[in-house]
């Protein structure tokens, strides 16, 4: 055996070094003991020990969302892999580039119902971009190279590499491929120039142009290109939940988020426009609840997306442009620089109409002297952090309020589970984000129901000194479930009341953190100021805000209804 032979486990580690991985989020177990022994003997990346594998994948996912780099998780076979599935599916739905390395029972035991065996590749197949079972030590390096390439190119997504234990013990030479080519996988980057020209002339001649931007702009690092384009053509723009921050929210042209809980002006403009440019967005059911109603107002739709299957999936597209959003937007900007933009009079009229919709002030709410309004907490968070925090959220009412009342001016600042809607992501998302940005302010906006789904990670936060600020909007209800039950199920609050809640202050303290309970509106700002003060700079602060129990998220488009069929808050 040649002297430069190393173990399969060491090969795995060397691959991660080659990929310049900074953090691996994981949890050890039998099938990955060899790999963990190699982790122990290196210091090029830091291993973050979570308390449940789901959190490992969520944290790796948030690392990717907040940096644009591939996140890495390492879990063991059987339950380690099945626990990771929720995290993988969450990343898949939002197209997040992560690589998950899972241990597997030894090759000779596969199929024997061995201890901690499960068909990981089979179980994860529907929720990964791709996965691999490595059966030969010779293939470890090339497979991991492919995994990173597939995860981060084209429409990104999670890739899982399943490695049987015996292979990690064998020895072989390490040879990391410099490049990778897959004959079956060639994402289209450059958009069709004819289509791009057609799209631009349509937009420039439109009377009521509208831009609809999605998560693809954030994932594709195209926000400055988008901003330049939109400011030059002067049209209004809206964003999906996943696209927030892709265009500065403080800009006059920005109409706010659209969709089920979008603003009145964004949804109306989306419905009433004559030419729509969709960029890296997918017309999903929370945006276009009723495609037929949406098209009942005739419009020409241009759609830029790197994934051809996103085009004409729910809404028929007139001008499809398949390509990387950044490349297509660059082409559009180049073409635009050659055009003479004349003062567009119809655009003025269009904005007049929009200003009327905007004047409804659909997000206004009445503050109360006694009860803390959840919207007020988010507004105050925005004020205290000067709009410059990374905000992670869980799933439910608090998520929508965070999206509505914390305007994001920069991409990759808003970290949440849009597609799968996974309760429990908030805290692990904050962990991955804080590790990636150690000096940044990271706020986790959550609710008393969601936070309990990954509460064990408070222990991880203690171990790695993560000074996350948790904003728990505690209304003693699964708020969004309760809201639907109020609107659509005759106020029958089936199982949506959170009984036997823990004392969150004591809970936080028992994990070694700072806990605060805030019960009066007048205490909201002082509490947030203290939490983000220098005094508590190094500490995780759990703020338990006791909020108005019956507050609802408005506007709301009932499931399956059209964009202009919004329910608006009663007191407006």
């Amino acid at each position: 055996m040649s002297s430069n032979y190393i173990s399969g486990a060491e090969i795995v580690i060397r691959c991660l070094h080659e990929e310049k991985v900074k953090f691996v989020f994981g949890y050890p177990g039998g099938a990955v003991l060899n790999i963990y022994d190699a982790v122990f003997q290196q210091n090029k990346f830091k291993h973050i020990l979570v308390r449940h594998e789901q959190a490992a994948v969520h944290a790796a996912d948030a690392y990717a969302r907040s940096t644009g780099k591939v996140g890495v998780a390492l879990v063991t076979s059987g339950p380690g892999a099945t626990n990771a599935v929720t995290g993988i599916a969450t990343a898949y739905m939002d197209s997040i580039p992560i690589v998950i390395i899972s241990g597997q029972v030894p090759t000779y035991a596969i199929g024997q119902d061995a201890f901690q065996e499960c068909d990981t590749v089979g179980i994860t197949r529907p929720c990964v971009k791709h996965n691999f079972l490595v059966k030969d030590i010779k293939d470890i390096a090339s497979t991991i190279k492919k995994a990173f390439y597939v995860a981060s190119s084209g429409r990104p997504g999670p890739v899982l590499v399943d490695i049987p234990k015996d292979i990690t013990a064998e020895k072989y030479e390490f040879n990391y491929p410099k490049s990778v080519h897959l004959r079956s996988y060639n994402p289209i980057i450059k958009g069709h120039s004819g289509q791009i020209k057609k799209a631009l002339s349509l937009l420039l001649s439109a009377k009521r142009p509208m831009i609809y931007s999605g998560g693809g702009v954030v994932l594709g690092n195209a926000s400055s290109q988008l901003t330049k384009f939109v400011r030059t053509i002067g049209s209004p723009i809206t964003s999906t939940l996943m696209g927030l921050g892709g265009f500065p929210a403080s800009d006059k042209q920005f109409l706010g988020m659209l969709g089920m809980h979008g603003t009145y002006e964004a949804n109306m403009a989306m419905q009433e426009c004559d030419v729509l440019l969709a960029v890296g967005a997918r017309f999903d059911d929370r945006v276009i609840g009723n495609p037929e109603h949406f098209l009942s107002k005739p419009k020409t739709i241009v759609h830029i997306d790197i994934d051809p299957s996103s085009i004409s999936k729910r809404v028929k597209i007139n001008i499809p442009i398949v390509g990387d959003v950044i490349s297509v937007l660059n082409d559009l900007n180049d073409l635009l620089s050659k055009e003479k933009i004349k003062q567009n009079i119809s655009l003025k009229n269009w904005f007049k109409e929009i200003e009327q919709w905007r004047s409804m002030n659909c997000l206004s709410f009445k503050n109360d002297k006694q009860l803390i309004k959840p919207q007020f907490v988010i507004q105050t968070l925005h004020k205290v952090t000067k709009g410059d925090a990374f905000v992670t959220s869980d799933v439910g009412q608090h998520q929508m309020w965070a999206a509505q009342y914390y305007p994001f001016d920069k991409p990759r600042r808003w970290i949440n589970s849009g597609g799968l809607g996974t309760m429990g992501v908030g805290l692990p998302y904050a962990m991955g984000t804080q590790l990636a940005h150690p000096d940044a302010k990271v706020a986790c906006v959550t609710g008393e129901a969601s936070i309990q789904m990954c509460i064990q990670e408070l222990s991880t936060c203690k171990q790695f000194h993560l000074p996350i600020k948790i904003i728990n909007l505690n209304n003693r209800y699964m708020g969004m479930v309760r809201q639907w039950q109020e609107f659509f199920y005759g106020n029958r609050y089936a199982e949506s009341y959170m009984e036997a809640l823990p004392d969150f202050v004591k809970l936080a303290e028992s994990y070694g953190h700072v806990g605060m309970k805030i019960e009066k509106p007048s205490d909201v700002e002082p509490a947030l100021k203290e939490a983000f003060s220098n005094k508590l700079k190094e500490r995780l602060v759990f703020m338990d805000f006791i909020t108005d129990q019956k507050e609802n998220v408005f506007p709301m488009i009932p499931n399956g209804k059209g964009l202009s069929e919004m329910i608006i808050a009663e007191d407006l």
Partner: protein
Amino acid sequence: MRHIISLLMENESGALSRVSGLFSARGYNIESLTVAPTEDPTLSRMTIVTSGSDEIIEQIIKQLNKLIDVVKVLDLNDGRFIERELMIVKVKANAQYRDEMKRMCDIFRGRIIDVSDSSFTIEITGSSSKLDAYIESIDKAAILETVRTGASGIGRGDRILKV
């Protein structure tokens, strides 16, 4: 409408389940699916018979193309093509049926490949609808067993699906 989709994919374990999993996960129909390695052993060729509106077929093609293991996809219905399926059918061939079964076999250009005193085993190839027509034409009570391969298809003339 019925479509025949041909695809070339990496001949790797799990590739088949990626395709069948896609169909079940997205609720697409599969009428039949056949797969075997090609003359290049690293590639498998699969023929899927499915049905759906134009929009659904378009999505199926796009989703298939999206699978990392899939090298090329062709909707044979986009041009001229030939379709063949093989059926092996065991029919009663006792005194009552013997002559009729021989005659029907000849009419459908089948071949009797096994004979016993009470049965014929017949192979018939043709388009799936021809095989359906054969089944329709003979007395149901005479059918003992059928096995069909599912359709395979290939483009006519210069239409070639190759890497």
